């Protein structure tokens, strides 16, 4: 099993997370060998802290958004010869054991993508309004992509390298979560869900998506349809 993890790369998009990025990188490095942090032009010390903690570091010269950071990180991992790529949030709400379970499922079940679901697993400290919005987003995505998923906006995902090469993230900002699912659907990638635990802390609640972000996401998706 060890060799399965040898060339797995963890991609962590990061923007102004100096309070937590060091711990997140340390936790992930305890479970995986290769971690790349994509610093989206943070104005704090996130990049230094991540690099000192032992992560590879890519830095955007201008702030582009989380979608662009994932895209950069995935390209970097592929350049380094990744066999599988896991996307992981910087704010400490994911845990590395879930990421390992995703990778195991990826290779054991012969699928292209494994998506983590907090609704198959568990959540700690999620607000009711957050839960409601996520469930609405899930219904919206089920209708628009036809994918049968229980949690559509979870940053924890595992891709085989072949699948990661096919997925083209054009949405720079937060609409990439829906875009990735559209790519999975339109390119007929084999997918499955795996349970994960999400830990909501005061920090992640504060840093996470605001409900108003939903309007921006829908706008970005609508504009993308026009082009």
């Amino acid at each position, binding site marked *: 099993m060890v060799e399965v993890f040898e060339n797995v790369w963890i991609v962590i998009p990061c923007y102004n997370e100096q309070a937590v990025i060091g711990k997140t990188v340390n936790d992930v490095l305890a479970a995986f060998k290769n971690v790349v942090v994509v610093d989206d032009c943070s104005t704090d010390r996130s990049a230094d802290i991540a*690099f000192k903690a032992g992560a*590879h570091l*890519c830095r*955007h010269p201008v702030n*582009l958004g989380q979608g*662009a950071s994932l*895209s950069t990180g995935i390209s*970097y991992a592929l350049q380094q010869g990744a066999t599988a790529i896991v996307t992981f949030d910087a704010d400490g709400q994911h845990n590395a054991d879930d990421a390992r379970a995703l990778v195991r499922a990826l290779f054991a079940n012969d699928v292209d993508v494994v998506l983590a679901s907090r609704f198959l697993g568990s959540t700690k400290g999620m607000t009711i309004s957050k839960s409601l919005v996520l469930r609405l987003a899930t219904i919206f995505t089920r209708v628009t992509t036809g994918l049968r998923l229980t949690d559509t906006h979870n940053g924890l995902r595992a891709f085989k390298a072949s699948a990661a090469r096919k997925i083209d993230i054009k949405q720079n900002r937060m609409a990439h979560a829906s875009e990735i699912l559209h790519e999975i659907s339109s390119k007929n990638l084999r997918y499955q869900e795996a349970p994960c635990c999400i830990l909501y802390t005061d920090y992640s609640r504060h840093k996470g998506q605001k409900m108003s972000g939903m309007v921006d996401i829908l706008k970005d998706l609508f*504009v993308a349809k026009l082009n």
Partner: protein
Amino acid sequence: MIMRLFLIWALLVLTLYAFTQRTRSRLISYVMAIAALVGMILVAFPEVATDVAHFVGVGRGADLIAYLFMVIAIAAIFNLHLRNRLLDQRLSELAKSFALHTAKSPHDDRK
């Protein structure tokens, strides 16, 4: 009379500008030149605008010009929006490739 001369002068400048832009975008340069020429005709013979307005079912010539101006302005904003998106995309590609080229590995000695 002074206003007329000023408007015609401004529209002439616009026509010349449109002429210099024809290598960048043929379509936009033609549209701009035609709009400026039509504008000059309307400034010189304002009654034409009223006749045309009556013909297409708008009350006054001035209203017709206001409507046309709105359509042109909206088209111009849309065009700018598309250009802006294109520039955004290019900037993203540039920034991503910069990030990949300047990436640092913890195993690197040349930190």
